[in-house]
Protein backbone atom coordinates (compact mmCIF):
# COMPACT_ATOMS: atom_id res chain seq x y z
CA UNK A 1 0.00 0.00 0.00
CA UNK A 2 1.16 3.49 -0.77
CA UNK A 3 2.47 5.47 2.18
CA UNK A 4 0.42 8.53 1.27
CA UNK A 5 -3.16 8.57 0.10
CA UNK A 6 -3.70 10.02 -3.37
CA UNK A 7 -6.75 12.24 -3.81
CA UNK A 8 -7.48 13.56 -7.29
CA UNK A 9 -3.85 13.21 -8.38
CA UNK A 10 -2.34 14.79 -5.25
CA UNK A 11 -0.59 12.89 -2.44
CA UNK A 12 -1.95 13.88 0.98
CA UNK A 13 0.86 14.79 3.35
CA UNK A 14 -0.57 15.03 6.86
CA UNK A 15 0.75 15.25 10.44
CA UNK A 16 2.79 13.79 11.93
CA UNK A 17 5.34 14.64 9.22
CA UNK A 18 7.73 11.69 9.16
CA UNK A 19 10.80 10.65 7.22
CA UNK A 20 8.97 7.61 5.85
CA UNK A 21 6.22 9.82 4.42
CA UNK A 22 8.53 12.29 2.71
CA UNK A 23 10.85 9.57 1.41
CA UNK A 24 7.86 8.08 -0.41
CA UNK A 25 7.62 11.22 -2.57
CA UNK A 26 9.48 11.77 -5.82
CA UNK A 27 10.21 14.66 -8.15
CA UNK A 28 7.13 15.73 -10.12
CA UNK A 29 4.61 14.47 -7.54
CA UNK A 30 1.76 16.81 -6.76
CA UNK A 31 1.17 17.04 -3.02
CA UNK A 32 -1.38 18.62 -0.69
CA UNK A 33 -0.26 19.35 2.86
CA UNK A 34 -2.54 19.46 5.90
CA UNK A 35 -1.12 20.56 9.23
CA UNK A 36 1.21 23.23 10.59
CA UNK A 37 3.61 25.28 8.47
CA UNK A 38 6.14 27.68 9.99
CA UNK A 39 7.11 30.65 7.86
CA UNK A 40 10.76 31.63 7.76
CA UNK A 41 12.69 33.68 5.27
CA UNK A 42 15.87 35.74 5.04
CA UNK A 43 16.14 37.24 8.53
CA UNK A 44 15.03 34.02 10.29
CA UNK A 45 17.44 31.81 8.34
CA UNK A 46 20.35 34.13 9.13
CA UNK A 47 19.26 34.27 12.78
CA UNK A 48 18.93 30.48 13.11
CA UNK A 49 22.27 29.89 11.44
CA UNK A 50 23.86 32.31 13.94
CA UNK A 51 22.96 29.70 16.58
CA UNK A 52 19.71 31.24 17.82
CA UNK A 53 16.48 29.34 18.33
CA UNK A 54 12.97 30.36 19.41
CA UNK A 55 11.72 28.99 22.76
CA UNK A 56 10.24 25.53 22.09
CA UNK A 57 7.06 26.37 23.97
CA UNK A 58 6.36 29.07 21.38
CA UNK A 59 7.72 27.54 18.17
CA UNK A 60 8.88 23.95 17.83
CA UNK A 61 11.01 23.65 14.71
CA UNK A 62 11.82 19.96 15.29
CA UNK A 63 10.51 17.76 12.43
CA UNK A 64 8.58 20.74 11.09
CA UNK A 65 7.95 22.20 7.66
CA UNK A 66 9.40 25.63 6.93
CA UNK A 67 7.65 27.81 4.39
CA UNK A 68 9.63 30.56 2.64
CA UNK A 69 6.90 33.15 2.81
CA UNK A 70 6.35 36.72 3.94
CA UNK A 71 2.57 36.94 4.16
CA UNK A 72 0.30 40.00 4.24
CA UNK A 73 -1.24 39.81 7.72
CA UNK A 74 -4.26 41.73 9.02
CA UNK A 75 -5.43 41.76 12.61
CA UNK A 76 -9.16 41.20 13.11
CA UNK A 77 -9.90 41.62 16.82
CA UNK A 78 -7.47 39.30 18.60
CA UNK A 79 -6.86 37.08 15.60
CA UNK A 80 -4.48 37.35 12.70
CA UNK A 81 -5.66 36.61 9.19
CA UNK A 82 -3.32 35.89 6.26
CA UNK A 83 -4.79 37.82 3.33
CA UNK A 84 -2.00 36.94 0.87
CA UNK A 85 0.55 34.20 1.42
CA UNK A 86 2.50 32.94 -1.60
CA UNK A 87 6.10 31.68 -1.55
CA UNK A 88 9.22 33.83 -1.83
CA UNK A 89 12.36 32.94 -3.80
CA UNK A 90 14.16 30.14 -1.95
CA UNK A 91 17.65 30.34 -3.38
CA UNK A 92 18.53 33.18 -1.01
CA UNK A 93 18.41 30.65 1.85
CA UNK A 94 20.79 28.24 0.10
CA UNK A 95 23.78 29.20 2.28
CA UNK A 96 21.79 28.33 5.45
CA UNK A 97 19.21 25.70 4.50
CA UNK A 98 21.24 22.48 4.66
CA UNK A 99 22.43 23.18 8.22
CA UNK A 100 18.92 24.04 9.34
CA UNK A 101 17.50 20.86 7.80
CA UNK A 102 20.09 18.86 9.72
CA UNK A 103 19.77 20.73 13.02
CA UNK A 104 15.98 20.60 13.28
CA UNK A 105 15.29 17.49 11.24
CA UNK A 106 13.04 19.49 8.92
CA UNK A 107 10.77 17.23 6.91
CA UNK A 108 10.06 19.69 4.12
CA UNK A 109 10.92 23.13 2.90
CA UNK A 110 8.36 25.01 0.82
CA UNK A 111 9.29 27.88 -1.46
CA UNK A 112 9.69 28.80 -5.08
CA UNK A 113 12.37 28.85 -7.74
CA UNK A 114 14.23 25.82 -6.41
CA UNK A 115 17.40 25.42 -4.36
CA UNK A 116 20.99 24.36 -4.97
CA UNK A 117 23.31 21.43 -4.47
CA UNK A 118 23.83 21.78 -0.71
CA UNK A 119 20.10 21.63 -0.06
CA UNK A 120 19.61 18.76 -2.51
CA UNK A 121 22.30 16.77 -0.67
CA UNK A 122 20.83 17.60 2.75
CA UNK A 123 17.37 16.45 1.57
CA UNK A 124 18.83 13.13 0.51
CA UNK A 125 20.95 12.65 3.61
CA UNK A 126 18.48 13.70 6.29
CA UNK A 127 15.14 12.77 4.68
CA UNK A 128 13.62 16.08 3.64
CA UNK A 129 11.91 17.32 0.47
CA UNK A 130 11.73 20.67 -1.28
CA UNK A 131 8.17 21.48 -2.23
CA UNK A 132 7.48 24.14 -4.84
CA UNK A 133 4.40 26.30 -4.35
CA UNK A 134 3.17 28.36 -7.28
CA UNK A 135 4.85 31.75 -7.03
CA UNK A 136 2.47 34.68 -7.05
CA UNK A 137 -0.53 32.51 -6.18
CA UNK A 138 -0.98 34.34 -2.90
CA UNK A 139 -4.78 34.08 -2.84
CA UNK A 140 -5.15 30.40 -3.69
CA UNK A 141 -2.58 29.64 -1.00
CA UNK A 142 -4.03 32.03 1.60
CA UNK A 143 -7.41 30.32 1.20
CA UNK A 144 -5.83 27.04 2.31
CA UNK A 145 -4.69 28.63 5.58
CA UNK A 146 -7.40 27.73 8.07
CA UNK A 147 -5.97 29.61 11.06
CA UNK A 148 -2.96 31.58 12.25
CA UNK A 149 -1.87 29.90 15.49
CA UNK A 150 0.73 32.43 16.58
CA UNK A 151 3.72 34.51 15.63
CA UNK A 152 7.29 34.78 16.88
CA UNK A 153 9.67 37.70 16.34
CA UNK A 154 7.14 40.18 15.03
CA UNK A 155 8.99 43.13 16.58
CA UNK A 156 12.49 41.90 15.84
CA UNK A 157 11.99 40.77 12.26
CA UNK A 158 8.97 42.77 11.09
CA UNK A 159 5.77 41.26 9.74
CA UNK A 160 6.98 39.73 6.44
CA UNK A 161 10.05 38.19 8.12
CA UNK A 162 8.51 36.89 11.36
CA UNK A 163 7.83 33.19 12.09
CA UNK A 164 4.09 32.74 11.54
CA UNK A 165 2.43 29.48 12.59
CA UNK A 166 -0.04 28.63 9.85
CA UNK A 167 -2.53 25.78 10.08
CA UNK A 168 -3.20 24.69 6.49
CA UNK A 169 -5.53 22.28 4.77
CA UNK A 170 -4.76 20.72 1.38
CA UNK A 171 -2.04 23.25 0.63
CA UNK A 172 -0.98 22.57 -3.01
CA UNK A 173 2.70 22.07 -3.94
CA UNK A 174 4.89 20.10 -6.36
CA UNK A 175 7.94 18.06 -5.32
CA UNK A 176 10.91 19.53 -7.18
CA UNK A 177 13.72 18.12 -4.97
CA UNK A 178 13.08 14.72 -3.45
CA UNK A 179 14.85 12.76 -0.71
CA UNK A 180 16.59 10.49 -3.23
CA UNK A 181 18.96 13.03 -4.74
CA UNK A 182 16.75 14.16 -7.63
CA UNK A 183 16.17 17.80 -8.52
CA UNK A 184 13.77 18.95 -11.23
CA UNK A 185 15.58 22.30 -11.27
CA UNK A 186 18.87 20.67 -12.15
CA UNK A 187 17.28 18.71 -14.99
CA UNK A 188 15.32 21.64 -16.50
CA UNK A 189 18.35 23.93 -16.28
CA UNK A 190 20.65 21.43 -17.99
CA UNK A 191 18.15 20.70 -20.74
CA UNK A 192 17.37 24.36 -21.42
CA UNK A 193 21.11 25.15 -21.50
CA UNK A 194 21.53 22.54 -24.25
CA UNK A 195 18.64 23.98 -26.24
CA UNK A 196 19.98 27.50 -25.80
CA UNK A 197 23.27 26.42 -27.36
CA UNK A 198 21.53 25.42 -30.58
CA UNK A 199 19.42 28.61 -30.60
CA UNK A 200 22.59 30.72 -30.26
CA UNK A 201 24.19 28.78 -33.10
CA UNK A 202 21.15 29.44 -35.25
CA UNK A 203 21.36 33.19 -34.56
CA UNK A 204 24.97 32.99 -35.74
CA UNK A 205 27.69 35.62 -35.74
Amino acid at each position, binding site marked *: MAVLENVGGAFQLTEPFTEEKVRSLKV*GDMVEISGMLLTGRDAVHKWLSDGNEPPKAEVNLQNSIIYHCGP*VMMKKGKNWIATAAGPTTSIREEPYQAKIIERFGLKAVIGKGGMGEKTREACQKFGCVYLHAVG*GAAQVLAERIKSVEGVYGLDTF*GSPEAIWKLKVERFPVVVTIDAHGNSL*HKVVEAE*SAEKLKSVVEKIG*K
Partner: protein
Amino acid sequence: MNKTLQKNLHDSLVEVIRKTSAELPNDVFESIESGRKQEQEGSSAKYAMNIICDNVEIAKRKSQPLCQDTGTVLFYIHFPMKTDYELLQKLIKKAIVSATKKGYLRQNSVDSITGKNSGNNIGPGAPVIHAEPWKKDTFEIKLMLKGGGCENVGAQYSLPDSRVGAGRDLKGVEKCILDAVQNAQGKGCGPGILGVCIGGDRGTGYAASKEQFLRKITDKNKNPELAKMEESVTREANTLGIGPMGFGGKTTLLATKITALNRVPASFFVSVSYMCWAFRRQGAVMSPKGEIKKWLY
Protein backbone atom coordinates in the same frame (compact mmCIF):
# COMPACT_ATOMS: atom_id res chain seq x y z
CA MET B 1 -5.33 72.61 -4.98
CA ASN B 2 -8.54 73.06 -3.03
CA LYS B 3 -9.65 70.60 -0.35
CA THR B 4 -12.12 68.78 -2.63
CA LEU B 5 -9.48 68.17 -5.29
CA GLN B 6 -7.06 66.91 -2.66
CA LYS B 7 -9.60 64.51 -1.20
CA ASN B 8 -10.69 63.23 -4.62
CA LEU B 9 -7.13 62.71 -5.79
CA HIS B 10 -6.27 60.84 -2.59
CA ASP B 11 -9.29 58.55 -2.95
CA SER B 12 -8.63 57.99 -6.66
CA LEU B 13 -5.00 57.13 -5.95
CA VAL B 14 -6.02 54.58 -3.29
CA GLU B 15 -8.42 53.04 -5.83
CA VAL B 16 -5.67 52.84 -8.46
CA ILE B 17 -3.43 51.06 -5.92
CA ARG B 18 -6.24 48.66 -4.93
CA LYS B 19 -7.08 47.77 -8.50
CA THR B 20 -3.42 47.38 -9.48
CA SER B 21 -2.71 45.07 -6.55
CA ALA B 22 -5.84 42.90 -6.87
CA GLU B 23 -6.67 42.74 -10.59
CA LEU B 24 -4.58 41.40 -13.41
CA PRO B 25 -4.98 43.55 -16.56
CA ASN B 26 -7.08 41.85 -19.28
CA ASP B 27 -4.33 41.80 -21.89
CA VAL B 28 -2.10 39.85 -19.47
CA PHE B 29 -4.85 37.45 -18.40
CA GLU B 30 -5.76 36.60 -22.00
CA SER B 31 -2.14 35.83 -22.72
CA ILE B 32 -1.93 33.55 -19.64
CA GLU B 33 -5.15 31.79 -20.71
CA SER B 34 -3.71 30.99 -24.12
CA GLY B 35 -0.54 29.68 -22.45
CA ARG B 36 -2.60 27.46 -20.19
CA LYS B 37 -4.31 25.85 -23.20
CA GLN B 38 -0.93 24.88 -24.66
CA GLU B 39 0.27 22.98 -21.61
CA GLN B 40 -0.24 19.25 -21.43
CA GLU B 41 -3.08 17.84 -19.30
CA GLY B 42 -1.80 16.32 -16.03
CA SER B 43 1.61 18.06 -16.22
CA SER B 44 3.09 20.21 -13.45
CA ALA B 45 3.03 23.09 -15.94
CA LYS B 46 -0.73 22.75 -16.41
CA TYR B 47 -1.18 22.43 -12.62
CA ALA B 48 0.73 25.70 -12.13
CA MET B 49 -1.24 27.50 -14.86
CA ASN B 50 -4.54 26.32 -13.37
CA ILE B 51 -3.55 27.61 -9.93
CA ILE B 52 -2.48 30.92 -11.50
CA CYS B 53 -5.87 31.34 -13.21
CA ASP B 54 -7.75 30.47 -9.99
CA ASN B 55 -5.60 32.96 -8.15
CA VAL B 56 -6.47 35.77 -10.55
CA GLU B 57 -10.16 35.10 -10.02
CA ILE B 58 -9.99 34.96 -6.20
CA ALA B 59 -7.83 38.10 -5.88
CA LYS B 60 -10.30 40.11 -7.97
CA ARG B 61 -13.34 38.78 -6.13
CA LYS B 62 -11.86 39.42 -2.68
CA SER B 63 -10.09 42.66 -3.61
CA GLN B 64 -6.88 41.31 -2.12
CA PRO B 65 -3.28 41.32 -3.41
CA LEU B 66 -2.68 38.93 -6.32
CA CYS B 67 0.74 38.29 -4.81
CA GLN B 68 1.85 38.99 -1.24
CA ASP B 69 4.96 40.72 -2.56
CA THR B 70 3.35 43.98 -3.57
CA GLY B 71 6.76 45.02 -4.77
CA THR B 72 8.41 48.30 -5.60
CA VAL B 73 5.74 50.95 -6.04
CA LEU B 74 6.43 52.74 -9.34
CA PHE B 75 4.29 55.67 -10.45
CA TYR B 76 4.34 57.17 -13.94
CA ILE B 77 2.29 60.34 -13.93
CA HIS B 78 1.31 63.37 -15.96
CA PHE B 79 -0.27 66.36 -14.24
CA PRO B 80 -1.60 69.80 -15.28
CA MET B 81 1.07 72.54 -15.42
CA LYS B 82 -0.50 74.61 -12.66
CA THR B 83 -0.45 71.72 -10.14
CA ASP B 84 1.47 72.11 -6.88
CA TYR B 85 3.77 69.15 -7.47
CA GLU B 86 5.08 69.08 -3.93
CA LEU B 87 1.53 68.68 -2.66
CA LEU B 88 0.80 66.01 -5.28
CA GLN B 89 3.80 64.02 -4.03
CA LYS B 90 2.45 64.29 -0.49
CA LEU B 91 -0.97 63.04 -1.65
CA ILE B 92 0.64 60.06 -3.37
CA LYS B 93 2.50 59.15 -0.18
CA LYS B 94 -0.63 59.58 1.89
CA ALA B 95 -2.52 57.28 -0.49
CA ILE B 96 0.22 54.66 -0.15
CA VAL B 97 -0.01 54.82 3.65
CA SER B 98 -3.82 54.39 3.44
CA ALA B 99 -3.49 51.50 0.96
CA THR B 100 -0.97 49.78 3.25
CA LYS B 101 -3.36 50.07 6.21
CA LYS B 102 -6.14 48.56 4.09
CA GLY B 103 -3.89 45.62 3.14
CA TYR B 104 -3.67 46.43 -0.59
CA LEU B 105 0.08 46.77 -0.08
CA ARG B 106 2.30 44.71 2.21
CA GLN B 107 4.69 46.52 4.57
CA ASN B 108 7.45 46.35 2.04
CA SER B 109 10.02 49.10 2.50
CA VAL B 110 13.17 48.26 4.46
CA ASP B 111 15.95 50.61 5.61
CA SER B 112 19.04 49.26 3.86
CA ILE B 113 21.37 50.28 6.70
CA THR B 114 19.42 49.22 9.80
CA GLY B 115 17.22 46.52 8.24
CA LYS B 116 14.16 48.12 9.83
CA ASN B 117 10.86 48.02 7.97
CA SER B 118 9.27 51.49 7.77
CA GLY B 119 5.87 49.79 8.06
CA ASN B 120 4.13 52.16 5.66
CA ASN B 121 6.00 51.76 2.36
CA ILE B 122 7.52 55.23 2.61
CA GLY B 123 11.25 55.95 2.81
CA PRO B 124 14.22 57.09 0.73
CA GLY B 125 13.51 55.96 -2.86
CA ALA B 126 10.06 54.65 -1.92
CA PRO B 127 7.81 55.17 -3.76
CA VAL B 128 9.41 55.72 -7.16
CA ILE B 129 7.67 58.57 -8.98
CA HIS B 130 8.33 59.47 -12.62
CA ALA B 131 6.41 62.70 -13.17
CA GLU B 132 5.97 65.17 -16.00
CA PRO B 133 3.67 68.15 -16.30
CA TRP B 134 1.55 68.42 -19.44
CA LYS B 135 -0.73 70.97 -21.07
CA LYS B 136 -3.97 69.04 -20.45
CA ASP B 137 -6.14 69.81 -17.42
CA THR B 138 -6.45 66.12 -16.48
CA PHE B 139 -4.20 63.80 -14.49
CA GLU B 140 -2.86 60.53 -15.88
CA ILE B 141 -1.67 58.14 -13.20
CA LYS B 142 -0.08 54.83 -14.16
CA LEU B 143 1.13 52.42 -11.51
CA MET B 144 3.28 49.33 -11.56
CA LEU B 145 3.94 47.04 -8.59
CA LYS B 146 7.04 45.01 -9.30
CA GLY B 147 7.83 42.15 -6.96
CA GLY B 148 11.32 41.35 -5.71
CA GLY B 149 11.50 37.83 -7.16
CA CYS B 150 11.30 39.05 -10.73
CA GLU B 151 13.35 42.17 -10.05
CA ASN B 152 16.19 39.98 -8.80
CA VAL B 153 16.50 38.11 -12.11
CA GLY B 154 16.91 41.25 -14.20
CA ALA B 155 20.31 41.53 -15.88
CA GLN B 156 22.52 44.06 -17.60
CA TYR B 157 25.10 43.15 -20.23
CA SER B 158 27.95 45.23 -21.61
CA LEU B 159 28.80 44.32 -25.20
CA PRO B 160 30.91 42.64 -26.37
CA ASP B 161 30.30 39.78 -23.94
CA SER B 162 32.46 36.76 -24.73
CA ARG B 163 30.73 34.55 -22.14
CA VAL B 164 27.48 34.61 -24.13
CA GLY B 165 29.23 35.04 -27.49
CA ALA B 166 27.63 38.43 -28.05
CA GLY B 167 29.21 41.01 -30.33
CA ARG B 168 28.24 44.66 -30.63
CA ASP B 169 25.27 44.17 -32.90
CA LEU B 170 21.60 43.15 -32.79
CA LYS B 171 22.46 39.46 -32.95
CA GLY B 172 24.58 40.00 -29.84
CA VAL B 173 21.65 41.77 -28.18
CA GLU B 174 19.37 38.82 -28.86
CA LYS B 175 21.89 36.36 -27.40
CA CYS B 176 22.09 38.43 -24.19
CA ILE B 177 18.32 38.51 -23.80
CA LEU B 178 18.04 34.74 -24.21
CA ASP B 179 20.91 34.24 -21.77
CA ALA B 180 18.94 36.27 -19.21
CA VAL B 181 15.93 33.97 -19.73
CA GLN B 182 18.11 30.89 -19.21
CA ASN B 183 19.62 32.33 -16.02
CA ALA B 184 16.21 33.32 -14.66
CA GLN B 185 14.81 29.77 -15.03
CA GLY B 186 11.69 29.69 -12.83
CA LYS B 187 13.01 32.11 -10.22
CA GLY B 188 11.21 35.13 -11.62
CA CYS B 189 7.76 33.43 -11.42
CA GLY B 190 7.26 32.66 -15.07
CA PRO B 191 5.70 32.69 -17.50
CA GLY B 192 7.36 36.08 -17.67
CA ILE B 193 7.32 39.20 -19.76
CA LEU B 194 10.59 40.88 -20.71
CA GLY B 195 11.26 44.61 -20.93
CA VAL B 196 14.51 45.36 -22.71
CA CYS B 197 16.48 48.49 -23.47
CA ILE B 198 19.33 48.53 -25.97
CA GLY B 199 21.79 51.33 -25.21
CA GLY B 200 21.52 54.23 -22.78
CA ASP B 201 23.73 54.21 -19.70
CA ARG B 202 23.45 51.79 -16.79
CA GLY B 203 20.78 53.88 -15.07
CA THR B 204 18.65 55.02 -18.01
CA GLY B 205 18.90 51.57 -19.61
CA TYR B 206 17.25 49.82 -16.69
CA ALA B 207 14.67 52.60 -16.27
CA ALA B 208 13.68 52.40 -19.94
CA SER B 209 13.52 48.60 -19.84
CA LYS B 210 10.96 48.85 -17.03
CA GLU B 211 8.90 51.45 -18.87
CA GLN B 212 8.36 48.84 -21.61
CA PHE B 213 5.95 47.15 -19.19
CA LEU B 214 3.56 50.06 -19.68
CA ARG B 215 2.95 48.74 -23.19
CA LYS B 216 0.09 46.28 -23.69
CA ILE B 217 1.07 42.64 -24.32
CA THR B 218 -0.72 42.77 -27.65
CA ASP B 219 0.82 45.97 -29.05
CA LYS B 220 3.35 45.88 -31.85
CA ASN B 221 6.62 47.75 -31.84
CA LYS B 222 6.64 50.64 -34.33
CA ASN B 223 10.25 49.94 -35.20
CA PRO B 224 10.19 46.96 -37.62
CA GLU B 225 13.59 45.63 -36.53
CA LEU B 226 12.62 45.69 -32.87
CA ALA B 227 9.20 44.20 -33.68
CA LYS B 228 10.97 41.32 -35.39
CA MET B 229 13.32 40.81 -32.45
CA GLU B 230 10.45 40.89 -29.93
CA GLU B 231 8.73 38.05 -31.79
CA SER B 232 11.90 36.09 -32.31
CA VAL B 233 13.03 36.28 -28.65
CA THR B 234 9.61 35.15 -27.38
CA ARG B 235 9.45 32.30 -29.88
CA GLU B 236 13.00 31.06 -29.21
CA ALA B 237 12.66 31.40 -25.42
CA ASN B 238 9.58 29.19 -25.59
CA THR B 239 11.62 26.41 -27.21
CA LEU B 240 13.89 26.22 -24.14
CA GLY B 241 11.38 24.16 -22.15
CA ILE B 242 11.71 26.10 -18.86
CA GLY B 243 7.94 26.49 -18.55
CA PRO B 244 5.71 27.97 -15.84
CA MET B 245 7.61 28.22 -12.52
CA GLY B 246 10.51 26.42 -14.16
CA PHE B 247 8.57 23.14 -13.94
CA GLY B 248 9.30 22.43 -17.63
CA GLY B 249 6.74 23.20 -20.33
CA LYS B 250 5.93 25.33 -23.32
CA THR B 251 5.10 28.69 -21.77
CA THR B 252 8.32 30.37 -20.65
CA LEU B 253 7.66 33.90 -21.93
CA LEU B 254 4.36 35.62 -22.70
CA ALA B 255 5.92 38.57 -24.50
CA THR B 256 9.06 40.62 -25.06
CA LYS B 257 9.05 44.43 -25.32
CA ILE B 258 12.17 46.20 -26.58
CA THR B 259 13.20 49.83 -26.89
CA ALA B 260 16.46 51.58 -27.73
CA LEU B 261 18.24 54.67 -26.43
CA ASN B 262 21.29 56.35 -27.89
CA ARG B 263 24.58 55.38 -26.27
CA VAL B 264 28.07 56.83 -26.16
CA PRO B 265 30.46 55.14 -28.62
CA ALA B 266 32.33 53.31 -25.85
CA SER B 267 29.26 51.80 -24.14
CA PHE B 268 26.81 49.24 -25.47
CA PHE B 269 24.48 48.06 -22.72
CA VAL B 270 21.62 45.62 -22.95
CA SER B 271 19.34 45.98 -19.93
CA VAL B 272 16.78 43.26 -19.31
CA SER B 273 13.94 43.55 -16.81
CA TYR B 274 11.79 40.52 -16.04
CA MET B 275 8.15 40.81 -15.03
CA CYS B 276 6.43 37.88 -13.32
CA TRP B 277 3.06 36.51 -14.51
CA ALA B 278 1.49 38.52 -11.65
CA PHE B 279 2.00 41.57 -13.83
CA ARG B 280 0.48 44.36 -11.79
CA ARG B 281 0.07 47.43 -13.91
CA GLN B 282 -2.88 49.77 -14.08
CA GLY B 283 -3.59 53.38 -14.93
CA ALA B 284 -6.34 55.92 -14.88
CA VAL B 285 -7.18 59.34 -16.24
CA MET B 286 -8.53 61.69 -13.60
CA SER B 287 -10.69 64.73 -14.25
CA PRO B 288 -9.58 68.25 -13.23
CA LYS B 289 -11.58 67.54 -10.05
CA GLY B 290 -9.48 64.45 -9.36
CA GLU B 291 -12.17 61.85 -10.06
CA ILE B 292 -11.41 58.72 -12.08
CA LYS B 293 -12.78 59.17 -15.59
CA LYS B 294 -11.31 56.23 -17.42
CA TRP B 295 -9.17 53.13 -16.83
CA LEU B 296 -6.24 52.71 -19.20
CA TYR B 297 -5.74 48.93 -19.21
